[in-house]
């Protein structure tokens, strides 16, 4: 049963059609890499435990033969205990190092004034407002140029929200009284779902938007037009 589920999990992971594993930016790729790395390292643990678990329960379960046996007292085993202390530490270090590197990268906001597109994102119950540098404002649709640096400045008018476009990057909270920043470089044109990820009240579920990543030329055109 459980193995069957595991196999389905593996199958779906390799299929990679899950949004967070199908990234369209460097940031999201790094995060997808961490997800997969974590998954495979942890599969080692699950594998070892499963093997021991199945072996021991099958081999030592009560049968008519051993029913009245009295197992020998066994205090412990120093070597074994050292092994299962040290091995997990090694596995964890393998996960911790990339985690530290990628976490630092994800929070690093580059200051590259020329190229960068700045978008002011305002969350409020229950809609988003995206404001571009030339004053253009949209609500349901976030339009971004491909292959250009985008920095979101996240502000809230009321409660906490969280700005999330799963294929573009992990989420970042939108907190009243604070300005959070998030930087991404979309590298593929297309239309992607955006959502509010922090529970914010009655219509939290409906606080969605679409993200359109378009060519740089189309973007400039769209930005200067009156079209929504």
């Amino acid at each position: 049963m459980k193995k069957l589920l595991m196999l389905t999990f593996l199958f779906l992971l390799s299929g990679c059609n899950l949004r967070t594993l199908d990234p369209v930016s460097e940031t999201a790729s790094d995060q997808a890499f961490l997800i997969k790395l974590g998954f495979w390292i942890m599969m080692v643990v699950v594998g070892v435990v499963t093997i021991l678990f199945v072996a021991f329960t099958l081999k030592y379960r009560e049968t008519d033969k051993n029913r009245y046996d009295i197992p020998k007292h066994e205090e412990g085993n120093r070597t074994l205990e050292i092994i299962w202390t040290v091995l997990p530490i090694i596995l964890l270090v393998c996960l911790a190092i990339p985690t530290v590197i990628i976490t630092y990268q994800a929070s690093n906001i580059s200051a590259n004034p020329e190229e960068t597109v700045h978008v002011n994102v305002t969350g409020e119950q229950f809609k988003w407002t995206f404001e571009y540098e030339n004053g253009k404002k949209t609500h349901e649709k976030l339009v971004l140029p491909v292959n250009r640096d985008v920095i979101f400045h996240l502000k809230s008018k009321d409660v906490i929200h969280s700005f999330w476009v799963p294929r573009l990057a992990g989420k970042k909270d939108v907190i009243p009284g604070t300005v959070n920043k998030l930087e991404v470089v979309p590298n593929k044109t297309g239309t992607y779902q955006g959502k509010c990820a922090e529970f914010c009240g009655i219509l939290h579920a409906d606080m969605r938007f679409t993200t359109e990543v378009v060519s740089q030329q189309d973007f400039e055109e769209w930005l200067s037009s009156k079209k929504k």
Partner: protein
Amino acid sequence: MNVMEINIFGELLIIPTDVIAAWVLMIIGVPPVLYWITKKRHWPLIWDYATSTNHRKVGTLYIFFSVLFFFRAGIDALLIRLQLATPENQFWVFQGEKYNEIFTTHGTMMIFFVATPLLIGLMNVAVPLQIGANDLAFPFLNLIGLYLFVTGGTIFFLAFFFNAAPNVGWTAYTPLSTEDFTSGPNNNYYIMGLQVSGLGTIFAAINMIVTILRLRAPGLKLTRMPLFPWATLFTSFLILVAFPVLAIALLLLQFDRFYGATFFLGPQGHPVYWQHLFWIFGHPEVYILALPAFGIFSDIISNFSRKNVFGYTSMVLSLALIGLLGLMVWAHHMFTVGLGPFANTFFAITTMMIAVPTGIKIFNWLFTMRRGVIRMQTPMMFALGFIPTFVMGGVTGVMLASAAADMQYHDTYFVVAHFHYVIIGSTIFGAFAGIYYWYPKITGKMLNDKLGKWHFWLFLIGFHLTFFPQHLAGLNGMPRRVYDYTWEDGVFVYNFISTIGAFLMGGSMLFLIWNIYRAHRKKEENVGGDPWDGRTLEWTVPSPSPEHPFEKMPIIDRRDMLWWAKTQDKPIPVEEHPRAIPISTPTVQPMLIAAALFILSFGFIYHWIWVQVVGGILVLVFFVNRAFKDERIPAYEKEESEDEY
């Protein structure tokens, strides 16, 4: 039909139909129960339990009420799953506000009024017996703790009946939970319910610590204790650190809500302060739920493998380490808040470190079974189900600890799957295992093994069906706490399977009820003191455990003393002179104090100043009364005069 309009005294009341259905059910359901109790003449028995300070009776009530709340919160879960069964679903009233109320009551009840008290109940039943104590150190305080839990739970429970259920999640994040955004009584119920029951939990912890440190049988050094008392000891220390933080956070929130303070809002305050306070409590809380379950599993696995616990010392040390590290990881719930990369990586690494002692425990359990004789009876089945289930929850925990990756997982169904794997895997499986295991010690009767196995398998399969697909829903971008999703989201199949699984779990609970009903239907014989061929002291006393089970204290000189005595065919030596016993006399005082707190709480919830005053005075009066009136004094005097002879 979603609402009903009722005209009372010229005032138009608009009441949702789910509330009406609940009232109707209550009105139809309660009288038959009262009639049955009266007809069977059960009132004296109920009164005996309600006023007794005996640890087994208090523990039984803890378990009874937790199971009751488990059904309530479980029904909430089923309603959640019905609403989420298909995309763009409109199930009954459960969209928007109602959905928010229902996942809030589900989560809050499960954590505070099911999981925590269920374990405290089992501690009450088992710990004193396992360490050769006649009762807890402070029996009166114990009964107060029980009443505070039941009162807090009832306050929270009632919110729904007055159409004012809390609606901001079990985490109650500010500023959403402040007066500006959610006015009205709803979230006052959350504050008062948790405040009252939290105090009870603190009392229980103090009691456990003193009992374990002071009342062990002669020769039972700490290092000879079974692992459940050890886990209880560490858990109690965690409670002592964590619950006061919750109490303070709730008090500050109360000031914000009631008196216009601005701790969590405005120029001086900040909403993120709440998150820190909440998770400084909240993360230790999950270990408060896990450690006792670990203790139960250690005892059960050792018992049903007929072997001593493998690596006892490292088992104890890893409990301590998990508890200690558990205090240093709270901000892993806040990776997306923007605390900066240093804080994020720091908390990522401390969190990953917890996996090491946890892994040690897993392997020690496995090696306890190695070379043993594993009896596949219901308690052991739950312990066996626990190992792979909990490991799966643990590994997703490590994945979540990876800070940058968590920015994707955070607040999605991946997290919902993760914490159900760990909480149900440890606490709920542990509580079920413990209930089947100690049921004979509580009642003198055994639960049926076959029905128990039905319960186990249906629950296990239902559980994995419910929660495994949620990992994938989360990875595909489904946020938690949403009442709706679309076809394009591509999460329908996961959700549909999940709903089926939830009903399997619900169905499995019927086997437990049937099992308990069956055990008590006919006057079966008493199963005797030691039905499982046990190893620890609780199996040396009769079942159900009597009032003063260790009148003559056993003298202990090793671990698993009972097992040693059995294999050597020697009796356990006893101390001739009894030790002073915590006196257990029936008392109604805790009931009265709880009633006064109940009144006080409703005064706060609805801002009725006069009710607050009356409730406050009553509480104070009962405190003062208690200070001067100790019902144990006659008992102590009697004992002293007896000693003179």
